[in-house]
């Protein structure tokens, strides 16, 4: 699993999801972080709102955290942590570490997203989302499975990954907030499956 397997939009969603997880001090990137990033992305959010989703309500329903700066101020520490990080990094002359996505060889169920601020794992649900997105993009699903045409996975493929798993709580959240899963919607998100 590599970051090259995703196109610009797909990578953007992954990086945003990682950022959201880090901001909330979660040790794993979850489907909730991926969904929030999908709502910020152009393609998926347009498809979702066209089929009845109240994106604002979903955003409010997703768990969010107070910014670090306000939390620190509450215990009497008046600094901007992101600014401090950046200043220390620059004063030491260190390069920001490039993002890297890989599967651990010794633990195949661990998908790691390394980058600024260390390595984060994907939660089991989020890992499924990535796997479905890549499975779609690598032409292993109908009707092209014999051709095995490869293309980079898009943000829409990641959204399809969330919707593919009915047990994923984020999938239920979308349906609760007005998303109508009708044939037209499926034809847009899963064009090859119909």
């Amino acid at each position, binding site marked *: 699993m590599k970051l090259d397997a995703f196109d610009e939009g797909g990578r953007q969603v992954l990086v945003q999801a990682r950022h959201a997880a880090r901001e909330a*001090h979660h040790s794993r990137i979850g489907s909730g972080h991926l969904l929030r990033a999908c709502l910020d992305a152009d393609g998926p959010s347009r498809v979702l709102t066209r089929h009845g989703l109240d994106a604002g309500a979903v955003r409010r329903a997703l768990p969010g955290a107070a910014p670090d700066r306000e939390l620190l101020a509450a215990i009497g520490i008046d600094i901007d942590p992101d600014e*401090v990080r950046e200043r220390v990094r620059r004063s030491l002359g*260190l390069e920001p570490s490039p993002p890297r996505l890989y599967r651990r060889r010794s633990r195949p169920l661990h998908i790691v997203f390394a980058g600024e601020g260390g390595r984060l794992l994907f939660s089991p649900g989020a890992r499924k989302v990535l796997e479905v997105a890549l499975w779609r993009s690598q032409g292993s699903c109908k009707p092209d499975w014999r051709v095995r045409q490869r293309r980079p996975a898009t943000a829409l493929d990641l959204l399809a990954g969330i919707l593919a798993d009915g047990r994923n709580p984020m999938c239920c959240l979308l349906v609760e907030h007005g998303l109508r899963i009708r044939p037209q919607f499926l034809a847009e998100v899963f064009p090859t499956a119909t």
Partner: protein
Amino acid sequence: MASRTAQLAADLDCRDPAIGLPAVAALRSLLDDIETMQVQHARQLGWSWESIAGALGVSRQAVHRKHARRGAGR
């Protein structure tokens, strides 16, 4: 300066553990990041794990286990 901090602090109730504990987590994450960067810098300057550990006040094994695989030695 002190009054501005007090003002910001007044907005969030620091007696509420739901604020106090995440605040500690925020501080720790900042601390970890700065430690990682300082260790990486020290390794680039050729410091040994032993002297880094001494300066941080932890055992050599602890600092090696925490930072060696992060590419701090590169």
